[in-house]
């Protein structure tokens, strides 16, 4: 079967520049909006899901969905810390396990308004567990037992009193900011200090969770089952990776829903625009279609030709839309993670998934928008088409 030459479509898009550009821009705006939301979701997801380690165990109180609502007595937590066979020992013979307390504290944004910032008190073992994951990039680390804190890189410029040398009050205790740290994960939005000093400042008595390094090959499911049965201090265990990906569910679901909803609704409008453009393209070329038809092109190649033209419109819009959101890559923003009620800072991430979705979406818009007009063109009778000028 003879196909209509592609140059015919390219030329036609070029000749009808105005509608082509407007349609491409319209599709680009749609694709960019959807891709932007998706990039946000990807940034958020990668922050949590991709940074959690599977050789670390997070121990929480049963029923607690996040560390904010988990609580242990100090004695109970220490018992788990010291006497769990699955935890690896450090070079000093002590288990590589750390008690951590966590509280979302009221802080003021630099640009006004209150927000909740995660405050974490950690024992020194935490640093041994984290190793290179956490790097102090300015100043130094806090000294054990001192009223000092280090602050995550992504909040230093967003939250008041978070630069090195600032004094940050927690309840009635002033803490000195001595360092800024960098970390691949949600911790970059946190303020860290010494576990015991934090408990004292907050008038609290026990940790929220125990974090421990697992021995290679340790069975987390078995550990979890055994801890749940614990008579004095029942607890749950999960790998950090599993725990963190669980923390993203709500916001991630919201963003995916938002992206999907926008994609659907804006997509409808974009499809209509593409249809309109193709209809007018075909109306303007009725005579040419008559010639094509009279030359011996069958209806199907004519259909394919116009559908291809519409797909091309979609693709151009998709590529432009993807290019439009590209500068967003890495741009940081903050919102509340509704699972922990704390503000997290995260960046837009233009991942291959985002680009691929954008392009596929734009092609779909072109295909759906082009079907009806292409079908109309294919159905046109050559005699009629030639008569109408």
């Amino acid at each position, binding site marked *: 079967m003879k196909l209509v030459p592609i140059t015919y479509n390219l030329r036609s898009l070029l000749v009808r520049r105005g509608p082509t550009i407007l349609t491409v821009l319209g599709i680009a705006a749609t694709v960019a909006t959807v891709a932007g939301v998706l990039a946000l979701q990807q940034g958020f997801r990668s922050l949590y899901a991709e940074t959690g380690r599977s050789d670390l165990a997070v121990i929480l109180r049963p029923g607690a969905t996040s560390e904010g609502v988990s609580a242990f007595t100090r004695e109970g937590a220490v018992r788990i810390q010291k006497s769990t066979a699955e935890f690896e020992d450090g070079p000093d013979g002590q288990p590589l396990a750390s008690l951590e307390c966590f509280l979302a504290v009221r802080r003021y944004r630099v640009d006004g308004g209150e927000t909740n910032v995660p405050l974490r008190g950690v024992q020194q073992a935490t640093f041994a567990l984290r190793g290179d994951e956490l790097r102090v990039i300015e100043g130094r680390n806090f000294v054990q037992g001192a009223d000092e804190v280090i602050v995550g890189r992504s909040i230093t410029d967003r939250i008041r009193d978070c630069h090195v040398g600032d004094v940050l009050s927690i309840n009635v205790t002033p803490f000195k900011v001595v360092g800024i740290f960098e970390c691949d994960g949600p911790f970059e939005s946190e303020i860290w200090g010494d576990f015991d000093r934090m408990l004292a400042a907050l008038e609290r008595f026990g940790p929220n969770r125990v974090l421990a390094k697992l021995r290679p090959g340790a069975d987390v499911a078995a550990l979890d089952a055994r801890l749940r049965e614990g008579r004095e201090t029942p607890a749950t265990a999960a790998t950090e990776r599993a725990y963190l990906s669980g923390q993203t569910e709500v916001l991630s679901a919201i963003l995916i829903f938002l992206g999907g909803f926008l994609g659907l609704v804006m997509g*409808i409008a974009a499809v209509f625009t593409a249809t309109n453009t193709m209809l007018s393209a075909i109306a303007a070329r009725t005579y040419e279609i008559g010639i094509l038809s009279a030359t011996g092109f069958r209806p199907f190649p004519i259909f394919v030709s116009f559908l291809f033209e519409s797909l091309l419109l979609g693709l151009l819009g998709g590529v432009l839309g993807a290019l439009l959101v590209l500068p967003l890559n890495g741009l940081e*923003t903050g919102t*509340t993670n509704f699972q922990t009620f704390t503000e997290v800072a995260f960046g837009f991430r233009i991942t291959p998934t985002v680009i691929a979705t954008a392009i596929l979406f734009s092609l779909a818009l072109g295909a759906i928008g082009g079907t009806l007009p292409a079908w109309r063109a294919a159905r046109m009778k050559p005699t009629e088409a030639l008569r109408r000028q």
Partner: protein
Amino acid sequence: MDLARLVWRNLGRRKLRTTLTMASLVVAFFLLCTLRSLVTTLQSGADAASASRLIVQSAVSLFVDLPQSYQSKIATVEGIEHMSKWQWFGGYYQEPRNRFAQFAVDPEETLTIYPEMQVIDGSVEDFYANRRGVLIGEGLVEQFGWKVGDTVPILPELFPHPDGVGVAWEFQVAAVYRPTQRNFDAKMFMFHWDYFEDTVKAGSGEAPGVGTYILKLAQGVEPTSVMASVDALFENGPQRVQATSESEFQKQFVTMFGNVPFFVSTIGGGVLIAILLAVINTMLMAGREQTHDIGIMKALGFSDGDVVRVLAQQSLLICVLGGALGIGLAKLAEPGIADAVGAMFGGYEVKRGTMLFGAALTVALGVFAGFAPAWRAARLQTVDALASKD
């Protein structure tokens, strides 16, 4: 023969195109109004606030409780007429998605402090007398079909029942209130502090803390001086407090949404650009098709202004009709969307202001989209336009 008829006939010239463009407009304005309503709903919580109520909360964290011993100290500050302890219970009914605001409160004080709650079923006396009694908003009656006398189990997340993990707290519906003011939450669930405290104590042996103290000021008392006095009481611990007006208290939940309103506005901008391009595209096509007609009109002696009006009115008509339908649809979908997003955007409402804003936008869009073809039409030379094949 009025030019209005020509405008109308021209819209009917390409019925499919006009329909598709209008449908895009319907969709876009539905989306714009809905998005904007989400933002206004988020921000309207503070609107129901009363100036004579103060909230005392921890200055450290939203998640830190205050000791019960603070009550008698706060009471020493002059100008406070009523005070109630409040604690956020944070449970759900049957499934985690059935969340609403549950509070342990001092019943009589609370009803005095909040005259906005009008009891429409059961009685205030029953609520006071029944230790396990609960006062619920009529929104919950609508959602779950509860009625006075029903026993309602609530699964706790923050306060485990002393009988073990996964055991529900049981309450009995004693009274139903209806808010007398818009924006006042119609889905609150309030029960006796005493029952709450005794049950918690039976489990942990410790009395629960107080989430917030709600104060009602005497008439004519300056709220700022009371706030300062309350804050000063606990300046040196053990827990610093922060007394705020009710509206400030609500606003902290709004600011917690951080950049969400900004995102929503940006998305709205994207929608607007897309639809603007779509309408301009349609109008340019229409203008091009009507080039020949424009030539005829000019030859007949119609002025450039007449020609501009015919084209601009087509654009305006499409935009206003499509936009109005979209705005109407957003209003019509209000109950459905309110149900879907109720958990996070309580009291979702498409406000009059939003609809007016949408209406203004449709007109602006129509004028703007009509501008390009109209400009082109005005500048066309009659002879060239007549020679046009379109």
